[in-house]
């Protein structure tokens, strides 16, 4: 009977509606479970000595992770020094020179594909390109190095920064470019003094996102920077990083070290959350001012 079929269809629809809602609820619950646990256990383990002290070598009182925090900051600075200029310039190419479709189209595709390369493979490439040749040419302890680690991180950063820069530049209205050209500016002047500055805010957020992503990476550093338990600011040696130190401590048996690992994860998550939130606030304000300016 038609009405019975309709009833089953309606019941199915209602049931599936509940199922879809449940799926969403489940995903959100999992998020809260995972991050909630990490926050809870991190808060119980964190104190000032985490930021202030360096490792002591004694497993009962292992000190802090200052060396790892400084290490991560320096690694990010090095990676950004290489990754940001290259990435932004490549993004400018993809956006402003996209009429050279013979190169621009495939390059966009290559950049997208590169963002999907497993980070451990990037680490292995870093090893083959920056660790092995260096240790062949020099005869002292310069093989695993912070420079190699930063290079691996830059490799991950460049395609991400390039694509987000391109997307942000595309959002700049073409009227800006046309106006600038109409006033007699060259292409270079247009790009550097009109287009880029107007997209500066969103490009910066893209860079921050890429840095935040790269700050949480561990695998690329496993065979390049290797990690270190000493406070060192010299990137030509094996170099510490927050993620590597957390991994070493978390997979070991010593409870005091594990506490440091949990505190470290909290710091990492807090950083990521802050960056993500900041980006949203900035983007919202940006959109508001642009609408207001119209």
């Amino acid at each position: 009977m038609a009405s019975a079929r309709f009833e089953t269809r309606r019941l199915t629809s209602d049931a599936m509606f509940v199922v879809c809602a449940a799926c969403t609820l489940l995903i959100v619950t999992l998020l809260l479970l995972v991050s909630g646990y990490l926050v809870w256990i991190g808060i119980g383990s964190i104190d000032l000595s985490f930021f202030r002290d360096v490792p002591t070598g004694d497993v009962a009182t292992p000190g802090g992770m200052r060396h790892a925090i400084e290490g991560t900051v320096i690694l990010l600075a090095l990676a950004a020094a290489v990754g940001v200029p290259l990435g932004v310039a490549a993004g400018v190419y993809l956006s402003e020179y996209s009429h050279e479709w013979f190169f621009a189209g495939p390059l966009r595709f290559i950049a997208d594909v590169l963002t999907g390369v497993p980070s451990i493979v990037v680490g292995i490439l870093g090893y083959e390109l920056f660790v092995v040749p260096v240790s062949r040419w020099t005869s002292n302890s310069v093989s695993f190095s912070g420079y190699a680690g930063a290079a691996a991180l830059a490799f991950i950063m460049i395609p991400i920064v390039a694509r987000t820069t391109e997307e942000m530049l595309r959002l700049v209205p073409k009227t800006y470019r046309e106006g600038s050209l109409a006033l007699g500016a060259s292409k270079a002047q247009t790009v550097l003094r009109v287009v880029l500055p107007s997209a500066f805010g969103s490009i910066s957020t893209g860079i921050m996102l890429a840095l935040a992503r790269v700050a949480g990476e561990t695998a690329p550093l496993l065979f390049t920077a290797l990690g270190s338990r000493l406070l060192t600011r010299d990137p030509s040696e094996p170099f510490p990083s927050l993620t590597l130190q957390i991994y070493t401590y978390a997979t070991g048996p010593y409870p005091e070290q594990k506490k440091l690992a949990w505190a470290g994860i909290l710091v990492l998550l807090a950083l990521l959350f802050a960056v993500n939130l900041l980006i949203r606030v900035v983007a919202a304000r940006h959109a508001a001012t642009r609408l207001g300016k119209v």
Partner: protein
Amino acid sequence: MSIIQRAAWVSAVGVSIVVGGGAANAEASEVRLGGAGATFPAPLYTKWVAEYEKVAPGVRIDYRSIGSGGGVKAITDKTVAFGASDAPLTKREIEAMGGPDKIIQIPAVIGGVVPAYNVPGLSQPLNFSGEVLADIFLGKISTWDDPRLQELNSGVSLPKLAITPAFRTDGSGTTHVFSSYLATQSPTFKGEVGAGKQVKWPLGQGGKGNEGVAAVIQQTAGSIGYIEQNYAVANKIAYGAVRNKSGKFVLATPETMSVAGEGAATTLQGTVLRADIWDQPGDSTYPISAFTYIILYKDLVNLKTESEAKALVNFLNWATGDGQKFANQMDYAPLSSGVKKAVDAALSTLTHNGKPVK
């Protein structure tokens, strides 16, 4: 400021931070030596490094415990001043380093590999025999209440719990010691798994470094793994007694391990010193004892300056001399005087760029 000016300013600041940091490190007029290798002696080496800094301030030694395989690779690639390994160099490794007259290999201390386990409800250490251990790691004995384990431990009620062996995933001297010992105890083990730094364990869970295996044991009820004694003691992991060649069940202690090393002095000759001290005779001998070795080049050209070479020689002399007093408290056994003599003889042949190091 234009974009370019802004970018230039930022990079200038960044570069100066990094270069300044690097320069600041280099300015400190201290000697830095790098060593890498076995996790087996790592707790003691860390202690040595800390104590030696009190004796000789201005010498900073960075020992990275990455496994014996990594240590041999590091010294072969000349990326460190000295390598550490519980597995003595194989013929092929000696060749890769340039031949036996280019190498010095000395025992640094004696340690013991213990069968550590996680079985709830026990109040005293279990007894194991070599064949039983081999069969556990082969998978022939798969539950704790197996009759062969009961037989060795009458009076203890063992639970019906599956056994999970825990092993090393990295190239490990501890694996070399344990698998070599098991190979002497069980021909089946020798044929199926063999001895080496990295072998194919038939079953179980892998961990990286002694630390990783200790973590696996801690986290898995019913597991048993092979770790250096210090890791078991430091983490309060229960470990068992092993039946030695004379039939006695012996727990690993500095005394029972020293006994194992006593007979070795006579076999040590030349500069590539090696002695396998597992399965030694004696009532109180711990059967899974082993030397752990430090490996370096006879001509220390891999060190840039003579002060570095001197610092290294002084450190090694101290470690095999005064430093041995720390061995007992860290659950290792010091070298006997006979062994020490052979070590001193080998170290005295060290040169730097042809000149002997004093």
